[in-house]
């Protein structure tokens, strides 16, 4: 039978060249129709391309990691400044048994205890997290110890080219104020330290807050390098390549945005459909709830909830928090469309063949009412990325050390933005492009999904 139909088609094509065109349009499937309507919006196609790029970019994150050889996260060792100790901005540590590298794996903690500023050495106790009994003392050379009186300058012990401490007439080491940038560039160029295997920290420590260091496994990290052939987007404060971190950040940011949009979409569609279809009390109730939610200022409530909920600064908690407050807009939109669609004749005719309410709502009406919701959802993706970023920017989003979202990366980059702007700029650019791509796609989707539009 299928063969018959194929043959017949062939015959008609030969008979009448126009027929081909007619057959083509007649056999347009729903997806083809949607695509051809979407394609008419040039901006929407641009948005789609940008979005697909972001998707591929995020999914390729492990690839960047392999290519650049730089992992996304700090494999964190924490140097804690205990009372009585001097906050060290950076340490270069020379271990007598440096061969024993396994102790510098993830999950170790450092304390500065016995600090000998004169000799530039300090005794460091190292404890593993896994085993409290395992304690071992190491002697480390501190490359620099200093007070951080401002973000843009560091007081450093002056050294000559060989690395020896320069002393004044009294025999005290000379300490000088060094601009942060020169300081870091100097570190990056100091191959000698790298060769001996050093542990460096680049983040200016605050009181009592951990400073993060990277136990580079012998190979040197180049920190604060601008975009260069080796590091296309430069490296950041952790001596990490910005590219894989952005890609991983994209994964988390997009995952949060899509999950929230999906959940809020489902919830919004469900409540909006009920209210719009049944009207009356259900409708009034939903409207009051939506109005109530409209009175809540979102950013402050997010800030509070993130802190109040245990584990609030993890992606899943963020998804939950955004979802709770995000469905109202979708619900209102669905309600409006259902209100309009329920008086359409096809709804009446679905009733007349004996379909129940749920069937009419979700099988007959929903496909017709979905277009505006999809549009508002696609705009919602953008706004959730923005919300997440602003929370992270305030330091209330996911922890940038373990979960580098785009917003968190900006937050991190913000601390040294004036001197090292590239990590922040690239993260911001990605956020901007993604949000804009969804805004662009919204228009196209609205027209593409409207079943009453011509092909």
């Amino acid at each position, binding site marked *: 039978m*299928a063969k018959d139909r194929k043959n017949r088609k062939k015959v008609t094509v030969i008979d009448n060249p126009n027929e081909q065109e007619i057959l083509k349009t*007649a056999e347009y499937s729903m997806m083809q129709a949607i695509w051809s309507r979407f394609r008419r919006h040039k901006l929407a196609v641009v948005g789609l391309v940008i979005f697909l790029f972001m998707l591929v970019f995020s999914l390729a994150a492990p690839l960047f990691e392999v290519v650049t050889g730089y992992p996304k996260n700090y494999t964190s060792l924490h140097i804690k400044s205990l009372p009585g100790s001097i906050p060290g901005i950076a340490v270069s540590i020379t271990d007598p048994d440096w061969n024993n590298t396994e102790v510098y794996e993830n999950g170790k903690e450092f304390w500065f205890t016995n600090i000998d500023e004169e000799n530039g050495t300090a005794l460091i106790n190292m404890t593993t997290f896994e085993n409290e009994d395992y304690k071992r003392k190491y002697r480390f050379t501190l490359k620099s110890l200093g007070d951080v009186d401002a973000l843009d300058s560091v007081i450093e012990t002056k050294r000559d080219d060989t690395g020896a401490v320069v002393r004044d007439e009294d025999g005290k080491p000379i300490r000088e104020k060094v601009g942060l940038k020169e300081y870091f560039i100097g570190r990056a160029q100091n191959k000698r330290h790298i060769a001996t295997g050093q542990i460096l920290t680049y983040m200016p420590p605050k009181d009592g807050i951990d400073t993060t260091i990277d136990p580079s496994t012998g190979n040197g990290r180049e920190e604060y390098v601008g975009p260069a052939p080796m590091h296309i987007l430069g490296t950041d404060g952790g001596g990490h390549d910005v590219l894989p971190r952005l890609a991983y950040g994209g994964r988390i940011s997009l995952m949060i945005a899509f999950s929230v949009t999906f959940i809020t979409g489902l919830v919004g569609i469900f409540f909006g459909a009920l209210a719009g279809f049944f009207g009356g009390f259900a409708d009034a109730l939903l409207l009051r709830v939506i109005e109530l939610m409209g009175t809540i200022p979102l950013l402050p409530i997010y800030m509070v909830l993130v802190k109040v909920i245990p584990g609030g600064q993890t992606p899943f908690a963020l998804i939950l928090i955004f979802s709770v407050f995000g469905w109202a807009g979708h619900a209102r939109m669905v309600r409006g469309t259902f209100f309009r669609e329920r008086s359409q004749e*096809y709804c*009446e*005719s679905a009733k*007349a*063949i*004996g379909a*129940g309410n749920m069937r009419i709502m979700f099988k007959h009406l929903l496909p017709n009412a979905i277009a505006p919701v999809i549009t508002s959802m696609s705009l919602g993706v953008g706004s959730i990325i923005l919300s997440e970023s602003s929370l992270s920017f305030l330091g209330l989003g996911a922890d940038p050390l373990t979960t580098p979202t785009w917003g968190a990366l900006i937050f991190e980059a913000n601390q040294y933005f004036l001197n090292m702007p590239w990590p922040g700029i690239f993260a911001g650019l990605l956020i901007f492009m993604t949000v804009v791509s969804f805004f662009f796609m919204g228009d196209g989707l609205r027209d593409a999904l409207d079943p009453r539009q011509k092909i």
Partner: protein
Amino acid sequence: MDNNNVILDVKNLKTYFYMSDGVVPAVDGVSFSVKKGETLGIVGESGCGKSVTSLSVMRLIQTPPGKIVEGEILYHGENLLKFPMRKIRQLRGSNISMIFQEPMTSLNPVFQVGDQIAESLTLHQGLHGWDFRTRLRSWGLFWEMVLMSPLFFIPSIRTKLQDINNRLKRMKIDTPAWARAIEMLKLVGIPDPERRATDFPHQMSGGMRQRVMIAMAMACNPEILIADEATTALDVTIQAQILELMKDLRRRFGMSILLITHNLAVVAEMADKIAVMYAGKIVEYANANDLFAKPMHPYSWGLLHSIPRVDQPKSDDKLPTIEGMVPSPFNLPVGCKFHPRCFNAGQRCKEEEPPLQTLENGRQIRCWFPISHEGGA
């Protein structure tokens, strides 16, 4: 009238709409009955309550504003108004079906027409169509297609994709509900039904869509078919074809038709009995032949004589019309509702509403001064 052949018996039906401006008595005490295989035509101007009557029979009146306040709708002697909604839903589509006025908008634009016909079969006869279960069976084929589709530019893969597509389509067409739906499409005279079944409504012309609507309504062999202005939106030739089709189906399946229209030509063609409605009330209820030969109510007379006829000699007289307008439902005249427009109205018409009198031959009329045809009209 009370014999076993009566399928639908409507008694003193009153459907009111409670609007913010007041109460609209859209249907105000309508009674009629339909026997097996019989066609009842309900005619009247716009807003006279024809459609509300049909919707009341289907229990499709939207309630907040509307409400059936009184009366009985007896289907095989059982009152539909006392049925729970679940039972009504079982009756809708399988025992009582309805064809709607607008073929352009009465089909759901996002479903293939085959799906829409198959749905009522799925709901009422348990035939399974292109549902989750059958789709699951085509899962492998579907993914094969999805995975191959990026390579569509390779000619051999393209043919293979087309082949899979055809096989998927075939699977859909072969499900029991779809097979029956295609049979129905054939029955209502759609050429190449297998291909047209997978069309979307926007790919069909108005006449085709109306045929699809009829196929949808007829799919479960209903006992009563309610055709609410079913041919109004169609042009005359298509209208004739559709009427012919309905007559044919009526003859074959012995169903009763409730034909609701303002087109007298359509009722003349189809109906056995005619109820003329005005302002929510039946003003004349008669056999079709009697009514067309001797309209007794001035309103029926007016309706019939305001149609130009080709079989009468040309005259210079103006075509008679019914003067005035349909009264506002909020402000109905006292007495006979038709008296402000009636050429025959007397003083009594202004004061007292005439009752529905039954004459010989089961003919009913609501008029104080019916037109007498003894001298020949």
